[in-house]
């Protein structure tokens, strides 16, 4: 997949259908405040609330996710990012709330039905299917396979040609994710970073409209992370919407079109990366204290550096754990 052929026709489309980059930025007119409306939201969540006993894990009043853009969801540990992911994808049930994806109401649907609408997720704790080969992991991701029906499974000629198409697609994706040499190995033999890649590639096999990646870069070496970032940007340009949770602020800065910040279950800020890093609410969320007095530039920079250092330390701590 090269950029040129996909970009050329896209430029002919009306302005608002275009993702950003050299083209008009869909976020130009969006204000940097929690719950800001987007020109073309693909995912809209309202009043999504989840309590665990006395703790309110998630309390999102309103969130819109822009179509064909990359949205980063950041926030300190325990902010409710993963819980929010779980709620939206049907892996957990909210106490209240409604959300639509591509104008389809999703609340109350099971996880597999939500996945079938085109919203596919990955997991923070990677779920490589250890005793399946890498290729089988990939093939599993493809949707609407004829041979998945019990009776049709007994008649290989019904699904053999489809299986070949799926395999070809899998080979292409494995190439993109630097996993070609592992295709016949058990997924359990992959390293932590490779498992992250496999999980992402497997999710893409489902040809989703939106992927939700939970810490996709954790444990991936920086060089490979750059490759992945490029691929994700390419996928966006081809029409994929991406929401991802990430602690690495470098990654967030390089790739995200829009950043949403969660703290204590609520969305405390939204904006571009540049507007987020100077937002006092975000610094509060990471450092836990806000002095309330107007800050001079030096103080702002100092707190910012502290916040980034804290995030970096956290990331390293997690990497060491993994």
């Amino acid at each position, binding site marked *: 997949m090269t950029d040129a052929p996909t970009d050329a026709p896209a430029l002919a489309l009306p302005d608002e259908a275009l993702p950003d980059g050299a083209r008009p930025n869909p976020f130009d007119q969006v204000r940097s405040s929690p719950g800001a409306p987007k020109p073309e939201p693909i995912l809209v969540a309202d009043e999504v609330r989840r309590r665990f006993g006395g703790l309110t894990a998630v309390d999102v009043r309103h969130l819109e996710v822009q179509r064909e853009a990359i949205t980063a969801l950041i926030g300190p540990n325990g902010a409710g990012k993963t819980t929010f992911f779980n709620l939206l994808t049907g892996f957990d049930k909210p106490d209240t709330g409604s959300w639509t994806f591509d104008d389809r109401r999703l609340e109350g649907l099971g996880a*597999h039905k939500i996945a079938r609408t085109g919203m596919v997720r990955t*997991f923070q704790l990677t779920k490589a299917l250890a005793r399946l080969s890498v290729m*089988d992991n990939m093939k599993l991701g493809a949707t609407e396979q004829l041979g998945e*029906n019990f009776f049709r*499974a007994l008649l290989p000629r019904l*699904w053999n040609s489809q299986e070949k198409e799926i395999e070809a697609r899998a080979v292409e994706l494995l190439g993109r994710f630097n996993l070609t040499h592992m295709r016949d190995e058990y997924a359990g*033999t992959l390293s932590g970073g490779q498992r992250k890649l496999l999980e992402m590639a497997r999710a893409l096999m489902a040809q989703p409209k939106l992927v939700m990646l939970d810490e996709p870069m954790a444990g991936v070496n920086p060089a490979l992370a750059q490759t992945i970032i490029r691929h994700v940007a390419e996928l966006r340009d081809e029409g994929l919407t991406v929401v991802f949770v990430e602690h690495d602020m470098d990654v967030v800065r390089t790739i995200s079109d829009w950043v949403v910040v969660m703290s204590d279950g609520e969305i405390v800020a939204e904006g571009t990366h540049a507007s987020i890093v100077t937002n006092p609410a975000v610094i509060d969320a990471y450092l836990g204290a806000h002095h309330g007095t107007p800050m001079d530039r030096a103080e702002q920079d100092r707190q910012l550096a502290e916040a980034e250092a804290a995030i970096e330390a956290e990331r390293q701590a997690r990497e060491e754990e993994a």
Partner: protein
Amino acid sequence: MNWHSILNGTLRALVGREAIIYSLAAIGLNVHFGYTGLLNFGQVGFMAIGAYGVAISVTTWDVPLIVGVLIGVGAAVCLALLLGIPTLRLRADYLAIVTIAASEIFRFMMSAPSWRDVTGGSDGLTGFAGDFFDANPIPGGDYGFGPWHYSARDLWILSVGWVAVLLAVLLVRMLMHSPWGRIVKAIREDEDAVRSLGKNVYSYKMQSLVLGGVIGAVGGMFWMITQASITPGSFSTIPTFYAYAALILGGMARVWGPVVGAMIFWALLAFTQGILDEAVANDLIPSSIMDSNQAGNVRFILVGIGLVLLMVYRPQGIFGDRREIALGER
């Protein structure tokens, strides 16, 4: 020591009726546990409901045996649905508890005096297998070679049995090499991952439970039809664990694992039985230590020790892949 008769008995057990019964039971368990990760501790319940389905329908309604077999299969499907609906949404251990309980409940129901007219109570039923033996096309006489000499009746039993095993193996093989099998194996590894890719995990687990249950039920039917009588006492919890032993011996998630496992399991039992019997009879083991009745139980101890050693030195079983065991521990 009469080594000739010991060896003869062992070789006959290798392809005997028990090997067929437990092949089928273990193939079913392989579908459940080896491929899908469903912990079924009540496989004997499926065997019992299949066998009683045949026996009761033939004796009560006087239907042909083949119809009885279909009813037995239908009963096993119903049992799988009944067990699966409440438990398959829960963790694996719930299914284990419910299946073992259900198989015991069914056994006690069949031995209850209240339904004696239909079930025969603890005496069981006879006279339902006539069609099977009438259908034997093999003319009388002695067939076979070496240690394997059979009457026409035994040859008919073994032929039908091994054909059934072969068909079951073929069915499992085709399914496990299809996208259906891929999903089922993926469920064994991680349900949530499969769910996140848009597959209805609950439905696949149910299909697997039904499939393995029906194969087990066919094993139960074969068992009771070929002995031409049925008693509830046969369906204690023990056959389930024999089937597990056979499966582990042969290697899980391997198409031929349960079959070879069952053959070797029963050959080993016959071999140890032969040795102990001979040893007791020839006073190699004094009767003050062990008499011939006790020898029958000691062989299970020996086979148990054998299984322990297998777990230590070859945990993947005969056909299994050691790498898979290592990965499973992660």
